[in-house]
């Protein structure tokens, strides 16, 4: 099967399955949230019919209709961009997410790029200095830090760096006094507030990039074309950049996809701990108050973000390395 077609099928299947999962979890499970919600309204003195209309205003839900029609209607609403109204905030979920998405995309993309560059640089350096004390200690640190959860690092950072030492702000996306817009204060404040979440991500994710960059570099260093380049007397800088670096970095791009998913998954913790107004914060708020429409909206949006960025990363990778397109059947 064509490689691109396979990626597109994966993209569509993933979205279909995620939407179906939210549909079935919220409506079908015993003691499901919709029933609970109706009961809550009835306890407030509504009749069953009134409670039903109230719930229907929140999520297009009609319990008397057959399942497949409900499912079909659910899809119709989602395709129109209608994710229902938030149960607790009484605002359309799509509107809330519209505010939250840019912050999350901002944090995740900056973190991904920084941890990638830090990891690659350290990896190349460790490969050149392999066996040294630097190599041993940074490799050990990388493999340990990679396994420590974001929320642990985040908690330690927020307690010491933000609250105790007051080096960084502990919450929000920008300072209270600045007016959003294209001005120096605002941009500076945004970057300052993003610093700790980004550092948290970098500390917990650079290890993966670093370790694989190191092993790739070591194996490329043994290739004959590197020896030949040396023999031709090319400057070291050129060898390490164009001969070694470019070939060693290529396999890393396959891991981009997995990494994006992992980062979006961690957004729930990082944004919650730093009270950053992105999707992750809203998801954890929604969990706390059991706001189902907001919860499923956040989940679907995170999934779509991951799926689409995966797809783009894969396409870019197939541009970079033509072997992928031709060998993968």
């Amino acid at each position, binding site marked *: 099967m064509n490689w691109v077609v396979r990626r597109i099928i*994966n993209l569509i*299947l*993933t979205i279909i399955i995620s939407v179906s999962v939210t549909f079935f979890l919220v409506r079908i499970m015993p003691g499901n949230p919709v029933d609970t919600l109706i009961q809550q309204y009835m306890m407030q003195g509504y009749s069953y019919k009134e409670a039903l209309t109230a719930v229907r205003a929140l999520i297009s839900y009609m319990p008397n209709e057959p399942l497949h029609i409900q499912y079909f209607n659910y899809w119709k609403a989602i395709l129109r961009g209608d994710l229902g109204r938030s149960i607790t905030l009484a605002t359309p979920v799509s509107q809330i997410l519209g505010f939250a998405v840019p912050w999350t995309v901002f944090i995740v993309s900056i973190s991904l790029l920084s941890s990638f560059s830090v990891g690659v640089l350290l990896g190349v350096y460790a490969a050149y200095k392999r066996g040294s004390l630097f190599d041993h200690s940074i490799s050990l640190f990388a493999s340990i830090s990679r396994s420590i959860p974001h*929320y642990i690092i985040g*908690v330690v950072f927020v307690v010491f760096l933000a609250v105790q030492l007051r080096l960084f702000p502990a919450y929000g996306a920008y300072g209270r006094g600045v007016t959003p817009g294209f001005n120096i204060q605002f941009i500076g404040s945004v970057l300052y507030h993003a610093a700790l979440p980004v550092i948290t991500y970098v500390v917990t994710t650079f290890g993966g990039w670093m370790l694989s960059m190191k092993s790739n570099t070591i194996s490329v260093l043994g290739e004959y074309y590197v020896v030949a380049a040396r023999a031709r007397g090319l400057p070291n800088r050129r060898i390490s950049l164009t001969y070694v670096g470019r070939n060693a970095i290529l396999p890393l791009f396959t891991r981009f996809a997995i990494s994006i998913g992992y980062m979006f998954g961690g957004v729930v913790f990082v944004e919650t701990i730093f009270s950053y107004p992105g999707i992750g914060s809203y998801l954890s708020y929604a*969990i706390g108050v059991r706001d189902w429409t907001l919860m499923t909206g956040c989940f679907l949006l995170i999934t779509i973000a991951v799926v689409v960025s995966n797809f783009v990363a894969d396409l870019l990778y197939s541009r970079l390395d033509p072997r992928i397109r031709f060998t993968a059947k």
Partner: protein
Amino acid sequence: MIGAKGLISLRKGISRGLQGWASELKFTFKILKRDRTGLVGLGIIVFFALMAAIGPEVYPLEMMPHPEDRFLPPSLEHPLGTDFAGRDTLAQIIHGSRSVMAVAFLTGLFVVLISIVLGISSGYIGGKFDMLMMRIVDVFLTIPSFPLLVIIAASVNRTLSPVEVALIIAAVEWAGLTRAIRSQVLSIREENYIESARCLGLGAFHIIFNEIFPSLKPYIAMNLCLTIVSAIYSQVGLYFLGVMPYTSVNWGTMLNIALYRQSGLLNRKVWPYLFSPVICVVLVQTGFILFLHTLEEIFNPRLRSEEA
């Protein structure tokens, strides 16, 4: 040469398998003796496993509030101090370790079992079945697993036993190892000794369990470690976010309470209670990663240190 290898593995009965295990264990300890980081890792794992297994029997947990003992600093009577209600922190850590470790090992077990069955059958049967399996695996690898886990856990409206928590985490995390085992099987399947086993007319069952499975063992052992690490991440994370009802004491619950209910950010008196679970999570994860390193060295001779 290769045919002979096939014959040898063919004759390997259960008794020889046991002998093999014993010699593998001996070999592991030999490497561990030399590799001190691995020994440290194993030590940490054993320490927490023992804490989870016998700790709760030895060190009783009393959840009755003693308001007069709030936020006591560490002392002989309370080695890690007390929490906001005057309860012993160490007791909560010890009792929490049981659910953390139980869920971690059970998740590892479930993921490994699912992946072995699905991965081997997918790689061995191949064809349409394999294609279908891999499409499903792709989907599960793409959906961000932690948010999915959050949604599933939040929609379960009751308290869950460790087995159930482990099943939910395994249901979200099985795909990676399944795909890895499947591709291992695909490459092993082409080896000559498998072909000679086939020529000898040995059944698929025999080939899968006696010929293919032994070469997968190291791979599975290493991935078991990784799965346990991510199971601890997920599970403590779920309790930290407060997704699941507080049933028993869990390190994640402690983190949540310390940070969001006891203002652990500002109040330094909360620190012993806040940082006890933090340090425990870091230690356990580090232990497994250090041990994983040694496993890699055991199974991959090329990685072994030069002095070997």
